[in-house]
């Protein structure tokens, strides 16, 4: 397998007003480097505020990194011109934590999934409609949800819809920022299974961001642990869970419910 994403020394600095009224710099990402193999899953684990979402936004070109590079198949996506970047965007897609907010609340399922198809263009309206229904089926949404608004769907259905929408763009990389965290346990498992099944079928590469080390170990091939904007530990999923080296990782391991800590039975693999 070859490297699909290579992140080098990524730094993101936010200017923030402190309570005293002065400007204050905040290093959300402090020299992050890693690689992800094509078709694999990298889990990024860390406590709240460790910089995970910032990393996700930088990867998806939704935030501009202060310095460093992100290579996608040998192209530095931070350096390309805006026009070219827009053409590259579909390749890296993101799923957000709260599907209720990440779907346009005024659009029906049909419109939501049609939009990226319109963006890609080149096919007729009828063909689009057919593809939308195919995509809905693919993520396990019944056809009748096509006429529903996001507020009429359950949390799990909304996340499925968010997945269907990005699938329409045929992305190479899917960044999942706490994509399961807002869901109930049983729904989490269903969506996790769906994600693995889709990865098997389509060969997508996942960057799975979570504060739940158990879920990370369950889904990922490799894990990096972040703290204070840095990667403090990395390794194969089972190893990190079994023999955490850093204090922060041990804390994360301790937060994993005992039942799921071991044995690790990957589902659908």
């Amino acid at each position: 397998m070859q490297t699909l994403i290579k992140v080098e020394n990524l730094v993101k600095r936010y200017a923030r007003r402190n309570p005293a009224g002065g400007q204050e710099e905040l290093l959300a990402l402090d020299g992050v480097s890693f690689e992800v193999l094509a078709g694999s899953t990298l889990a990024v684990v860390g406590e709240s505020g460790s910089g995970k979402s910032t990393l996700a936004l930088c990867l998806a070109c939704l935030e501009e990194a202060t310095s460093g590079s992100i290579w996608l198949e040998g192209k530095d996506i931070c350096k390309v011109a805006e026009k070219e970047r827009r053409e590259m965007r579909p390749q890296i897609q993101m799923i957000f934590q709260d599907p209720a907010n990440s779907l346009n609340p005024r659009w029906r399922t049909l419109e939501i999934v049609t939009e990226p198809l319109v963006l890609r263009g080149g096919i007729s309206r009828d063909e689009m409609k057919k593809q939308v229904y195919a995509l809905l089926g693919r993520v396990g949404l019944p056809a009748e949800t096509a006429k529903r608004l996001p507020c009429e769907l359950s949390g799990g259905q909304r996340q499925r819809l968010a997945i269907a929408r990005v699938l329409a763009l045929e992305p190479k990389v899917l960044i999942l920022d706490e994509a399961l965290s807002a869901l109930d346990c049983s729904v989490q498992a269903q969506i996790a299974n769906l994600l693995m099944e889709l990865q098997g079928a389509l060969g997508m590469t996942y960057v799975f961001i979570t504060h739940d080390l158990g879920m990370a170990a369950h889904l990922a091939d490799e894990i990096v642990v972040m703290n204070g904007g840095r990667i403090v530990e990395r390794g194969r999923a089972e190893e990190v869970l079994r023999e955490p080296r850093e204090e922060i990782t041990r804390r994360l391991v301790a937060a994993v419910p005992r039942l799921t800590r071991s044995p690790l039975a990957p589902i659908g693999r």
Partner: protein
Amino acid sequence: MMRYFLRRLGHAFLLIFGVSILAFLFTTLAPGNYFDEMRLNPQIAPETVAALRAQYQLDRPLVVRYASWVNSLIHGEMGFSFAYNSPVAPLLLVRARNTLLLTVTATVLAWGIALPAGVWSAERVGRLPDRLISWGTAALLVIPDLALALGLLVLAVRTGWFPTGGMASVDFEDFSLLHKLRDLALHLALPILALVLSALPLLVRHVRAAVAEVLGAPFMLAAQGHGIPRRTLLYRYALPAAANPLISLFGFSIGALLSGSLLIEVVMSWPGLGPFLLEAILSRDLYVVIGGVLFSTVFLVTGNFLADMLLYWADPRIRTKSGAR
């Protein structure tokens, strides 16, 4: 749809009915009436005044007068003007048309400017252009409408760029159609400018705030991430998502612009409802006052009704909720 529509329509009629009763009550309770001055005039016999009062039913109980007013409303008269010695409705219609011309043009223009300006500003929150707009609107906000209108009048007199009163030039009737339109536009310019300038700052600020709030929403990020062009993002995604408070503001702005129009009309001698009503109030021309109030109410209610319909059309979530009921 039909139910929502009918319910709103019902509300609108109830409101107009209520206002007509209130207008009746207040104009009757206010001291004095049109014939008081006649009574003081020694050349007019008290019997004549009494006969006139009887002719206009001023000596009858309120309920009877209200009933006969409603009756004349149905016949398209809206009562009788003492001063003009003619039914009220035709008098009002001409002036109302002129006021509508002012208010509607100002509303369209104000929103036509406020929407792009607000979106443009929201896209640049905190940067220099946005701050310039914020300062500009803040400065406009603190100037009272009246001062603004007077300032513009002075400017027009000094420069002679615009006519400073009325609605048409003296020889308007002899102009060709194109010339007529040009003349009208020139006369409209000043009052419209005053109205737009007074309404604009509030509108721009609200549009900016509403759109800026939406721009940070995850679904906007998601759409941006798909590679959707900036302009589409702003006008097809952000603006509709920010529309609900703005549509309510639209309803409100019609009211503000209407009352603004009445004031500006008096200052700039625009032959609309404003000066007409003022005159009627001063001379206690009862039914003209009531008719004017009613006209304004109908206009306001229509504006709000339009806003409601717009809201219904713009937000499918309302449809789903009212459909379930």
